[in-house]
C-alpha cells in the first residue's frame, strides 16, 4: 500500500519541498536581519528609556515578507483541499477505486495507509512551516505576545492540528460527495466555518480569562502589550458596564479630560484578557480540539469507505 501511496503523491511531495525551500530561502535572511535590527533598536531605546516606537523600526521594508508569513495561515486549508479531498473523491471519479478495492487489500487497510501517510505528510509540512515562522517572528513576541490571531494561528502546535483536521475533513467530504470539485469546495467552506467558529466562540473560553479592573488613566499594567485582550469596557463606581458619558463629565470635550473626569468619579477600565504566559496551554487545548475533530472525521470516512458501494 505504501508503494502505491508514494507513487500517487510523489508529485505533491515535490511541490511541497520546493515551496518549503523557497519559503526558507526568503525567511532565513529576513529573520536574521530582523533579529539584528531588534537587538540594535532595543539597545538604543534602553539607553534613552523610550522603547515605545520599537515596532515601527522593526518591520520597515518587510511588509511583503510579513504578508507571506501571514499567508501560511492558508496552508492547512490548502492541504485539506488538495491532499485530503482528492484522496477518495479523485479515485472515485477516475474509477481507480474499482481497481484498488478489488486487489487483495481490504478497504480498511487501503484507507488506513493512504490516510495515515497523507496525515503524517501534512503534519510534517506544517510543523516545518510553523517552526520557521516561530523563529522568524521571535523578536516580535517580546513586544506583542503570541496570542494575537496573526501570531497564535501560524506557529506552535495549532497549525499541525489545523492541517491534520483539514486533511481528515477533506477525506471525509471526498468519501461523502465522491466528486473532486464539489469535495474541494465543500472542504474549504467547512474548514473556514469550523476555524471561524472556534476562533470566535471557543478559543476565548478554552481557559477562563482573567478579569482586571485597571485605572482609566495612567500607565497600562506591566506586560499588557503582550496580552490577548478579549474585552475592554468602562465600568462605573458600582461596577456596572456603561457606554454613556454621565452628566457630570459631559462638559469635558477632549478624550483625556473625559477620562480624567470619569476616573475622578470612580470609573474604571474592566479588562478581560489572557496573558502571554498561557500561550502553551491555549495552544495545547486548541490543538487537542482539532485533533479530536480530525479523529471524528476519520471515523465517518472509515464508515463511508467500508460500507458504501463502489
Amino acid at each position, binding site marked *: *500500500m505504501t*508503494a502505491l501511496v508514494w507513487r500517487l503523491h510523489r508529485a505533491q511531495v515535490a511541490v511541497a519541498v520546493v515551496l518549503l525551500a523557497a519559503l526558507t530561502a526568503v525567511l532565513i535572511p529576513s529573520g536574521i536581519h530582523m533579529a539584528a535590527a531588534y537587538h540594535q533598536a532595543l539597545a538604543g531605546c534602553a539607553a534613552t528609556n523610550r522603547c515605545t516606537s520599537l515596532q515601527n523600526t522593526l518591520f520597515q521594508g518587510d511588509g511583503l515578507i510579513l504578508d507571506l508569513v501571514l499567508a501560511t495561515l492558508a496552508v492547512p486549508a490548502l492541504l485539506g483541499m488538495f491532499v485530503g479531498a482528492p484522496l477518495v473523491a479523485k479515485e472515485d471519479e477516475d474509477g*481507480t477505486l*474499482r481497481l484498488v478495492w478489488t486487489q*487483495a*487489500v*481490504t478497504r480498511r487497510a487501503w484507507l488506513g495507509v493512504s490516510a495515515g501517510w497523507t496525515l503524517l505528510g501534512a503534519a510534517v509540512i506544517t510543523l516545518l512551516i510553523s517552526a520557521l515562522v516561530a523563529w522568524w517572528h521571535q523578536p516580535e513576541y517580546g513586544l506583542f505576545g503570541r496570542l494575537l490571531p496573526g501570531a497564535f494561528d501560524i506557529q506552535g502546535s495549532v497549525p499541525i492540528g489545523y492541517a491534520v483536521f483539514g486533511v481528515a475533513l477533506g477525506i471525509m467530504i471526498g468519501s461523502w460527495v465522491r466528486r473532486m470539485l464539489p469535495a474541494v469546495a465543500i472542504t474549504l467552506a467547512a474548514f473556514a466555518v469550523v476555524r471561524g467558529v472556534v476562533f470566535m466562540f471557543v478559543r476565548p473560553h478554552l481557559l477562563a480569562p482573567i478579569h482586571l479592573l485597571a485605572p482609566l488613566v495612567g500607565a497600562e499594567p506591566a506586560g499588557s502589550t503582550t496580552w490577548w485582550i478579549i474585552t475592554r469596557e468602562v465600568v462605573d463606581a458600582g461596577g456596572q458596564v456603561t457606554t454613556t458619558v454621565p452628566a457630570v463629565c459631559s462638559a469635558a470635550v477632549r478624550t483625556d479630560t473625559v477620562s480624567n473626569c470619569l476616573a475622578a468619579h470612580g470609573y474604571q477600565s474592566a479588562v478581560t484578557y489572557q496573558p502571554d504566559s498561557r500561550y502553551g496551554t491555549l495552544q495545547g487545548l486548541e490543538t487537542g480540539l482539532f485533533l479530536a475533530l480530525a479523529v471524528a472525521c476519520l471515523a465517518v470516512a472509515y464508515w463511508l469507505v467500508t460500507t458504501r458501494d463502489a
Partner: protein
Amino acid sequence: MSGPASGASGPAIRTAGVGKRFGSAWALRGCTVSVPRGRVSALVGPNGAGKTTLLRLLVGLARPTAGEVRVFGEAPAQTGAFLAGVGYLAQEAPMYRRLSAFEHLAVGAHLNRVWDAQEARERLADLEVPLDRPVGTLSGGQRSQVALALALAKRPRLLLLDEPVAALDPLARREFLASLAMATVSGDLSVVLSSHLVHHIEHVCDHLILLADGQTQISDDIDTVLAGHRLLVGPPRPGAGVPGATVIDATDHHRQSRLVVRLTRPVLDPAWHTEELSLEEIILAYMRRRRSAIDRPATGIRTAS
C-alpha cells in the same frame, strides 16, 4: 450455505433472487444464475440489463439489496482471502493514468499475496505494449491489455470482465480476446465476460447467461442453447401453439409465421419448416420477447398471436 461441499465442487457463482436497488429504481431484480467452474461465460444483455451491477455484486464492490450471492460458496467480503480469489476488470479499464504499466505491476505486488509480474511483463512485451510509459498515453487496446495482465497477475480463480471489448476497435478486440483465450487454456480459471453484443465474444465463450430486464433469461452451455432453439416457418395459424416447444418470439406476415422456439422435443408437424438459428438470433428473440412483454403486459408474451 457456504459449507465445504459447495466451496469445493459447487458452481463458481451462484445467485438466488438477487436484487440491487439504487434509490427507488431496481438495477437488478430477482436474478438467479449459476455459473459453472472452469468455463468462459458470456454475460449478455441489453444496456441497463444489470450486467455491471451483477459483476459489482460478485466482486463485493456493492452489496445486494435482496437475495444472496455466493462465489465459490462464499458471500463476497472485504477480506484479503476473498479478494485474492477474484480478478476484476471494471468497465473502461480504470487505471492510474500517470503510472506506467511497470509501476502498476510493481504496486500490484504489494497489494496482493500472489503476484505473477514476470508472466504479465512477458505477455505485455510480446504484445509490444510499452511498459515504461504512463498508461494514460497508451492506446485503448494497449490499456485494456495492461488491465487484463493486472487482473490475471493475481492468479484469480474467477475473472470478471465488464464490457472489456466494447470500446476497442476490431483488431484490438481480437488481440484482447486472444490474450484472454490464452489465459484460460489451463482450465482452472472461471471467467465471466459481459458484453451487450454477443458476436464480439461468442467464439471465446462456452457458456451463456442472458440477462434482460434484470432477470436471467438463459443460463446454459452455448452448444445446448444452439441445439435447443429453432426457427419454425409455416403458414399463419393464429392462436395455435406448437406442441413440444415454447415460443420465444413470433413474427406474423400475411402468408407465413416465423416462430423462434425453445424445443423440449423435436417438432414433428410437417407444416413447419425448421431452420437452425445463430446465437445472436436466439438472443435477439429473447430481448424482443422481453420488450413485447413490457409493451403489452395484459396479453403477455406473443405465443398465441
